[in-house]
């Protein structure tokens, strides 16, 4: 205890000096070796593989694994490069990590306060309608929030059907991934883009890609489900009278969601000046936004009946997971991002020179997003694009120029990250959550490779090829 207090005291004493020294424009990216990206690769692979190969170990020890990867970068990084390295880590924490976790926690808490009660019949048209509603909703409540809200009603509606797994898989495609492409609230990669300077409404330009892909996937689902519906038992297909009417409990949370939207839009439109926190410049409007979001979270928590959250099986566990794992991701990503931003001068120059055309960015971001978390993947390829096209230019200015001069590149990175998260169970966080909820409701979900071979490869990959030909 005494040792801990002493170290803490020394840190507090040293902080002003470190912070003052921070912000120097030491070109870390050109100095770092390629292997300094290994902790980042390690944490992403841990998130991807442990749930598959050692789920129980991962469930109980992911905190330690994440801390180990974060320390393996942060300790030597700061020891070798001193204040500039510390500044990079603080910048990532203050500008990216804290707002990111606040937004995810707010959307999850408010979304978890809405419960769709009542009964529906899982006919092909009802299922398709639910998928469509979820797809549209995902851009406004987040893919995780929309998935939380609709997966249980969908499972209840299909309780009596023999063929259910395909409906859950297409739910993952549409609600947990594709639907989140239209606003920064929809999917974490797009919110990270927003935090780095992509305007809030810019993502609306993705409507053509999103509408085309969603329409195709929904049409395939409907055709498949109409065939499978004919094979269902006659009693299941027979119209039923009665049943509890549909009701939305905790509907006031939709108003709070509108508040989230307003707060985030506000922070993108208004400039209230800058404040400096631990040597890091942060926009004042972003702090206002985060404070409003925390207030909305608290309001939702206090105003929503506990029974609604119980019905949704709401818990803080997902937020805790995001907070812990993204602390490690945002710590370890500092090195590869700095290297990529250095462009041809960095140790990953071969990546920068290999990915050139929008189609390359779409597939490179997409393939990695299929198996690694899509939020850091998005940032990685955004930095790759900036490093190649605008080396040495400040990030916000470079992003503004990217949008004007090479919009297809950002569209490709954004859609690649969001859409291709659907390619496997580990591509996007809600995928695994939906799978687990469905299995606990007695739905025999396909295995990891079954999901890819039976659904992703035949349905999504051809669609992505067509998207590439049409848009990139």
């Amino acid at each position, binding site marked *: 205890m005494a040792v801990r207090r002493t170290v803490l005291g020394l840190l507090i004493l040293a902080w002003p000096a470190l912070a003052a020294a921070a912000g120097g424009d030491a070109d870390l990216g050109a100095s770092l070796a390629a292997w300094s990206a290994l902790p980042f690769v390690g944490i992403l692979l841990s*998130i991807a593989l442990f*749930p598959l190969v050692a*789920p*129980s170990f*991962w*469930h*109980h020890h*992911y905190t330690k694994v994440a801390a180990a990867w974060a320390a393996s970068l942060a300790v030597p990084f700061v020891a070798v490069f001193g204040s500039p390295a510390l500044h990079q880590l603080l910048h990532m924490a203050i500008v990216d990590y804290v707002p990111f976790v606040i937004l995810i926690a707010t959307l999850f808490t408010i979304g978890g306060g809405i419960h769709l009660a009542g009964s529906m019949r899982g006919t092909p048209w009802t299922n398709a309608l639910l998928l469509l509603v979820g797809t549209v909703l995902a851009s406004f409540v987040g893919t*995780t929030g929309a998935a*939380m809200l609709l997966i249980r009603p969908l499972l209840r509606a299909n309780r009596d059907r*023999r063929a259910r797994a395909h409906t859950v898989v297409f739910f993952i495609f549409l609600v947990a991934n594709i639907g989140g492409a239209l606003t920064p609230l929809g999917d974490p990669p797009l919110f990270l883009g927003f935090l780095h300077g992509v305007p809030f409404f810019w993502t609306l330009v993705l409507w053509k890609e999103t509408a085309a892909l969603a329409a195709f996937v929904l049409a395939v689902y409907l055709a498949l489900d109409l065939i499978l519906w004919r094979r269902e038992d006659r009693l299941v297909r027979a119209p039923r009278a009665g049943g509890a009417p549909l009701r939305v409990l905790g509907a006031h949370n939709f108003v709070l969601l509108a508040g989230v939207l307003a707060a985030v839009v506000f922070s993108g439109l208004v400039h209230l000046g800058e404040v400096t926190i631990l040597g890091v410049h942060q926009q004042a409007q972003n702090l206002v936004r985060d404070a409003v979001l925390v207030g909305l979270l608290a309001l939702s928590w206090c105003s929503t009946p506990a029974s609604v959250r119980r019905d949704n*099986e*709401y*818990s803080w*566990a*997902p937020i805790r*997971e*995001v907070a812990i*794992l993204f602390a490690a991701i945002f710590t370890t990503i500092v090195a590869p991002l700095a290297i990529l931003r250095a462009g041809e001068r960095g140790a990953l120059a071969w990546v920068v020179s290999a990915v050139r055309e929008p189609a390359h960015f779409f597939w490179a971001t997409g393939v990695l997003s299929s198996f690694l978390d899509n939020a850091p993947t998005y940032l990685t390829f955004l930095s790759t694009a900036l490093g190649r096209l605008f080396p040495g230019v400040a990030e916000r200015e470079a992003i503004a120029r990217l949008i004007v001069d090479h919009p297809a590149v950002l569209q490709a990175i954004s859609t690649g990250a969001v859409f291709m998260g659907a390619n496997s169970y580990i591509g996007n*966080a*809600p995928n*695994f*959550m939906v*799978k*687990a*909820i469905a*299995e*606990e*409701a*007695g*739905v*025999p979900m396909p295995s990891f490779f079954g999901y890819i071979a039976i659904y992703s490869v035949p349905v999504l990959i051809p669609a992505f090829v067509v998207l590439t030909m049409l848009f990139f």
Partner: protein
Amino acid sequence: MTTWYEIIIIGSAKAARAFLAGFEAGSGSGRVVIDASDAGIDTAHHPDSLIDRLRTGAHAAFLAPAEVAGRLLAGLTDYGRGCDLEVGSVSEVTSARFDFSVEIFSETAAAEVRLALVETPPDGVEVVDYKERVQRDASARGAELYTPAHSYAFHASGRVHGNLPGVLEVHRRARNLAFVKAGEIRLETAPAALRP
């Protein structure tokens, strides 16, 4: 207890099925003869059938109870040659078995599986080498994004063994249960007194 016979027919499987349909319609026996390929029965265990398959390129396996088997064999002997069908072998089915395994994360579904496969076997059928493991983890309750673990997991495996009709019935139940992986039915046979 009725004795069942496995009848291997050399020739086109399609023609054999058509012959069987004609036999059942003409004899008024009803649909009592079982086509092994429809019922998930593995007939490749039969050395003769493998050799015959290589020799002729096709075969069919039917399972018939004693009261029908004799007439079916007589019919095949009398009329089979007309459609290039001949009886390859006839064996008495002494018992049948299949292996199953299951992994479920729903207590309700686990109870359904236990009831169907383990607790209510038909007469003359037993579950052997049955192993069951239930894991509960209260910390895994509720939705998780990055560390998905199930709060309840039921793992079981075993072998269903007994007379053919009973094993067929349990196999049918298993095939209707989504989480159960049921292997093909394997037959134990003995030389049959019945001759074509």
